[in-house]
């Protein structure tokens, strides 16, 4: 009975895992979520990939060259799709045009915007054929930029940049990639079976160009549920090879002597202020008063109390890499003095400037952790500053919607990186960014973002990022609170699993089962 298979099978090099949700879509142009990203990372190869140490390594592209006005990718000639047809430059051109085509309505179209004319095409002002990418022969891809884009090669590891086969996409229309037999693969695994809501099975792709490096023969995912304790129970019963832990299952895992692992998601959580005209939080002195009393380390160590979670002090997570090293080690986060007297001086100033300070609306999520956090903020602001706050607890979609419409004074928010460059956090508070939900507008900040986006000089970029983190701290655009980590248990026989923030996680491409 295959459904009752063990977590790992060394002889057949087969592993069983679970999923939190059904992938909403395996169409790489439409996919946005982690589950789809995880699956696509095993089914597809992009131009480049992230290697074991987080550096870029060749994928379908043998080599590449980045210039100020564009980039060239030379494709390997031995790469094929699972039906044996070659992977060509034209398939990348097709996929990228499709992703920015307004009719596709891809939520990640923006990630292609460094390409010439991408924004205009996405706005519907230009035909998709005008996108700045072309095939020069079957194995050479030429990309042109509107503005220099020093991190473009890193972007192409992202799923929206994966190639697509026009014949397959057009054959299935809107049902494309909705079932295992309605898509095609060029990666190390093929999707052999997809029973919606119940089970996905990945089999090694015998036609993969680098198949000699792939040891696992099968990855079976017969359990789909968002209940965290079910995953852990399945792990305990030796049914799955990896299970995330939360605060309730962690203690049991420790008591049983399981080896627990930590994984840094590179995700930043923060409090975001509303800068709109009618909001008290537009007042700098008020924001500084709040900043001076909310100490992230108190939140992390006294309230959240989960191992591995780190207090955050900068817009850029401490593990963010840039310029060949870790950014926070080269440019440490700005210092903040947690000082009640100073806070009260700021508060007095704010009261002078504003008259009275109305109760502040604190917009938060509805998870147990979000509630704990919110109560901490409420308590600290009341105790140390006498500030009243009203909690507005909302489900995820509604919280995002309220943030977008500016219905908050302070909002608890989070951000995960899309690619391995600090700009993925840095441009958040650019005046033109739709994710700048507090409407912070600052010419100096915008200039720093432009410089970081366009300069090809790594040092100039690093300095621009440093300016950003200082402006964010001095203007109190946000108060960084913590960096999230994942805790998990993994079957002792399973080796070679890579946890990476980028390019699909966890990554079993180079994993194997030890005897």
């Amino acid at each position: 009975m295959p459904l009752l298979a063990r977590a790992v099978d060394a002889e057949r090099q087969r592993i069983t895992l679970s999923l939190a949700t059904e992938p909403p879509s395996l169409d790489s142009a439409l996919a946005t979520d982690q589950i789809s990203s995880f699956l696509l990372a095993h089914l597809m190869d992009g131009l480049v990939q992230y290697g074991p140490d987080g550096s870029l390594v060749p994928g379908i592209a043998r080599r590449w060259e980045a210039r100020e006005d564009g980039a060239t990718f030379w494709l390997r000639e031995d790469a094929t799709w699972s039906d044996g047809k070659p992977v060509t430059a034209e398939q990348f051109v097709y996929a990228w045009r499709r992703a920015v085509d307004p009719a596709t309505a891809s939520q990640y179209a923006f990630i292609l915007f460094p390409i010439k004319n991408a924004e205009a095409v996405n706005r519907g002002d230009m035909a998709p054929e005008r996108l700045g990418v072309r095939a020069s022969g079957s194995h050479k891809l030429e990309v042109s930029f509107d503005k220099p884009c020093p991190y473009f090669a890193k972007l192409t590891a992202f799923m929206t940049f994966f190639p697509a086969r026009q014949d397959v996409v057009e054959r299935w229309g809107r049902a494309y990639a909705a079932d295992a037999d309605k898509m095609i693969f060029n990666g190390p695994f093929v999707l052999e079976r997809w029973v919606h809501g119940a089970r996905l099975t990945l089999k090694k792709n015998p036609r993969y160009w680098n198949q000699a490096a792939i040891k696992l023969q099968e990855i079976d995912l017969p359990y789909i549920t968002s209940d965290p304790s079910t995953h852990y129970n399945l792990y305990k019963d030796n049914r799955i090879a990896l299970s995330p832990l939360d605060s309730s299952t962690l203690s049991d895992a420790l008591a049983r002597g399981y080896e627990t692992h930590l994984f840094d998601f590179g995700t930043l959580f923060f409090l975001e202020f509303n800068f709109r005209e009618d909001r008290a939080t537009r007042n700098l002195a008020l924001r500084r008063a709040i900043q001076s009393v909310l100490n992230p380390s108190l939140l992390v160590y006294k309230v959240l109390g989960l191992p591995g979670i780190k207090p955050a002090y900068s817009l850029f997570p401490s593990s963010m890499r840039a310029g060949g090293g870790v950014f926070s080690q080269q440019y440490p986060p700005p210092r903040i003095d947690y000082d009640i007297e100073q806070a009260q001086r700021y508060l007095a100033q704010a009261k002078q400037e504003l008259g009275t300070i109305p109760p502040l609306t604190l917009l938060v999520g509805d998870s147990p952790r979000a509630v704990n956090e919110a109560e901490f903020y409420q308590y600290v602001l009341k105790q140390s500053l006498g500030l009243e706050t009203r909690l507005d607890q909302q489900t995820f979609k509604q919280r995002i919607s309220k943030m977008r419409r500016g219905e908050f004074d302070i909002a608890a928010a989070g951000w995960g990186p899309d690619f391995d460059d600090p700009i993925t956090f840095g441009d958040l508070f650019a005046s033109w960014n739709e994710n700048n939900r507090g409407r912070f507008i600052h010419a100096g900040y915008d200039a720093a973002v432009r410089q970081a986006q366009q300069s090809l000089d790594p040092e100039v970029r690093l300095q621009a990022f440093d300016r950003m983190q200082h402006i964010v701290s001095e203007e109190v655009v946000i108060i960084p609170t913590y960096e999230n980590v994942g805790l998990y248990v993994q079957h002792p026989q399973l080796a070679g699993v890579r946890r990476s923030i980028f390019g699909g996680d966890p990554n079993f491409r180079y994993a194997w089962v030890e005897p």
Partner: protein
Amino acid sequence: MLRYVLKRIAYGALTIWFIATATFFAMHAVPGDPFNSAKAATPQLRENLRARYGLDKPVGEQYVLYLKNMLRGDFGISFTQENRRVNDIIREHFPVSAILGVVALLIATAGGIAGGAVAAYWHNRLPDRLLMMAVVLAISIPSFVIAALAQLLIVQANDLTGRSLLPVAGWGTLSHLWIPALVLGLGTMAYLARLMRSSMLDVMNTDYILTARAKGLGNWQIFWRHQLRNALLPVVTELGPTIAAITTGGFVVELIFAIPGLGRYFVQAVQQLDYTVIMGTTVFYGAFLVLIVVIVDLLYGVIDPRIRLHGGRR
């Protein structure tokens, strides 16, 4: 009889229309829309998405279009499972919920009737007391606690014996079915047991039982031939809503045991404001409930000769 059936069907259709309309407008009144995701959409993208899903049209027009499609049996395409039709979602996942529900119902009915009868037979004695205690527990403990507990017990049992007695979660074989079905049916079983018990006790004090006793019938014969059969009627009455509740209410059990039923999709859709899936599943469940209630009404006449549907002379 036929007139009665037609009338019920007409009322049923009206009910479904009402459900559809109320859901449609309630949904559009909720703040936010399905396109709110962690990464903000540009105004351009929002427009592209709204156009793709027809949300750029005025609400009135959307409503008419939606009713038209509904009449044709087409609920549209899911907002979150971007390439799947809502009809396919219902078609693939309702049977799973239904199988689970039917087995749960069988377990609940058999257990409930037997338990209630046993409790009434030994009224106010030890079996009665024990059973009623269990009933109170089963009714008052929420199903997510029972489900989690049951799962934990399976893990412990497998661990202790070193064998796979039962699967912890998943779907696909018979062995995956029993525990989730039992957990799902447990509340209903307890409720039916209590109902059966009191119904039995009511019957016990009626004249015809007294007559039977006076005629010298044995305890067992009275119990079996007169008490049990007459006590069943109120239980059958309850079965209608219960069938609907059980086949549609398995969300928690489906979640904890990783069962690909429709309940999970329904709840997920509500959380994600997946308009088309919310509409599709709500209308489908509504129609299902109406259908079951009509069937049960019709069955009354079959089970109890005192009930006449066409209002003819007795």
